[in-house]
């Protein structure tokens, strides 16, 4: 084990996988930066969040490709090359910009194998920094994973800690299907123990981070860290919870969810998305359909409000679901009679 940041864990994986497999390449805006600049410094950026640093000097311009600001074509570049034998990792600088790349993501990458009757292979990873909490306002802060989760043919990954960042990204790059990999911007600096060497975390296997009989908290991405914070205060008052980190919203680990619901009968789903057609509402619906007989209280959904992400620090703080919201929702379900 080595203590490292979420950012460094992701960076290490790309170094390892590019070394291991010459078909892996990286493309995106400023993934190295510096091309065409006046300083002569070739790696002037290493990615806006520093996740792709050091790749250019090691692997060269053919495999670490600084692109124009053309999101649809960045994804298309990775998808087209992946259809023709490579493994492309496309970085979309902010998840919000997936809107510009939705055709290549949703209409192309997601559907090739299906439309070709199983012949096509599209091993592409689209890395997308997402999420609110850094005062980046309405067009640089969205979650987007709820939209991508709804698309058949895409796998959707949301690591909540550095170890999972490493294990899930390794799995994503080696996967033969398109994966959209959501990295929370506010978590890049988060440190944690990360296994050394090769480390893979399978898709569709949620992590049971905490065990308790009173309620089930289901979360993903950064919301897991807020749920962990809420656990301590609840425990002090004798409320013990299962905490499920979904890790992937598609595939969804239905068994882990239903096992826990059967045990506790009281559920809180925590999701950074606005409430309509969110992952929270999807999972609440799933539990209502498949775990109804176990329920002892209405499922509580802790989500952002139905609004764009506000800029003001005060408003944004109120916008993002936090430990207090989770604490209140858990107390509500456990006290329901």
């Amino acid at each position, binding site marked *: 084990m080595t203590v490292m940041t979420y950012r460094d864990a992701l960076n290490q994986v790309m170094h390892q996988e590019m070394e291991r497999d010459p078909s892996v*390449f990286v493309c995106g805006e400023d993934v190295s930066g510096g091309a065409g600049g006046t300083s002569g410094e070739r790696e002037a950026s290493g990615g806006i969040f520093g996740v792709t640093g050091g790749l250019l000097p090691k692997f060269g311009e*053919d*495999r670490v*490709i600084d*692109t*124009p600001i*053309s999101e*649809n*074509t960045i*994804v*298309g*570049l*990775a*998808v*087209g*090359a*992946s*259809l*023709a*034998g*490579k493994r*492309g990792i496309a970085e979309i600088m902010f998840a919000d910009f997936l809107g510009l790349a939705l*055709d*290549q993501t949703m*209409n*192309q990458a997601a*559907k*090739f*194998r*299906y*439309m*070709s*009757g*199983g*012949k*096509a*292979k599209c091993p592409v990873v689209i890395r997308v920094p997402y999420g609110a909490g850094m005062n980046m306002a309405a067009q640089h802060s969205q979650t987007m994973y709820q939209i991508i989760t709804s698309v*058949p*043919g895409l*796998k959707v990954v949301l690591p909540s800690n550095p170890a999972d960042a490493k294990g899930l990204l390794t799995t994503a790059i080696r996967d033969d*299907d398109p994966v959209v990999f959501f990295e929370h911007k506010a978590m890049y600096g988060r440190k944690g123990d990360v296994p050394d060497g090769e480390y893979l975390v399978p898709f*569709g296997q949620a992590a049971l981070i905490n065990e308790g009989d009173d309620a089930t908290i289901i979360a993903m991405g950064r919301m897991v860290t807020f749920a962990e914070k809420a656990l301590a205060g609840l425990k002090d008052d004798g409320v013990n919870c299962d905490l499920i980190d979904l890790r992937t919203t*598609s*595939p*969804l680990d*239905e068994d882990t969810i239903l096992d826990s619901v059967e045990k506790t009968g009281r559920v809180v789903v925590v999701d950074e998305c606005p409430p309509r057609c969110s992952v929270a509402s999807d999972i609440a619906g*799933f539990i209502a359909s*498949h775990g109804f007989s176990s329920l002892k209280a209405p499922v509580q959904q802790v989500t952002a409000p139905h609004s764009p992400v506000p800029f003001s620090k005060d408003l944004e703080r109120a916008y993002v679901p936090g430990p207090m919201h989770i604490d209140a929702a858990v107390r509500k379900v456990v006290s329901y009679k």
Partner: protein
Amino acid sequence: MAIQQSKDQLLRAYRQMKTIREFEERLHKEIMTGEIAGFTHLYSGQEAVAVGVCEHLDEKDLIVSTHRGHGHCIAKGCDVKAMMAEIFGRATGLGKGKGGSMHIADFDKGMLGANGIVGAGGPLAVGAALSAKLDGEGRVAVSFGGDGSVNQGAVLEAMNMAVVINAPAIFVIENNGYSEHTGADYAVGSKDIAARSEAFGMKTIKADGCDYFAVYDAMAELLDHARAGKGPCTAEFMTTRFFGHFEGDPQKYRAKDEVKRHRQEMDCLKNFRESVASTGALKAADMDVIDEEVLQLIDEAVLEARAAPAPAPEEITTDVYISYQ
């Protein structure tokens, strides 16, 4: 000075063009019977482009096609019977009946798919060209697109990206005069597609898309350029379509006699026959034999497709990677 082609090459090119023509003319009839569902966009009239381009390519070269993709598929070597079965929505189709006319693909043949989204092939072809570039074996990727596609941001992005990363991509623009039901003279703001690609810094050739030999010669020059690593390039081929945007399109946007006139004056098959007759390169009888063989093949393709089983209901959720309760 036209490139010399052997008799075998010419016979093969003729067979390919004729196969596309009869495939489409037959589909036009079959669609009327109501047996084929959905949208079908026929390629009749444009055969010289698909064949003039693909006769230069082998299976390792890659192409990305469009909604009007049957011609590109046949020219790149897709199995005609499996294509017909796909259009009929049968289990024996190239995509097991799950793709349909707009999504015929055969990755083993370097045919990365027809595409239901106008312009989407541009970025994909640049990606395929990147793969070819990284392999360093002189392969190329061809992006087929129409005059409508050059008004899509994706194609303009892709052209720029191809130049920036020096990808061996060739953008083949088939200007058939119409973007769906709207004239290219209206929808292409500058009216000059070739000038657009030149503005990206690409080698560009504009040629008669109804003349197989003009297409073939133009492509030879562009392929030399791209295979040598000198960067992407564009061909604009002026052509026409003999049917509507899709089958059932009443074509109210075309002058009453336009299609009839184009069938007389811009028929690439007729042009080909006249050309080889004038040079003595082929005998009419040789081509007549091919005509018979092609009609026979298309007949068989239709009969076999009609008799083939529908896909099993379980196929709905296969090849989606993930299943849910």
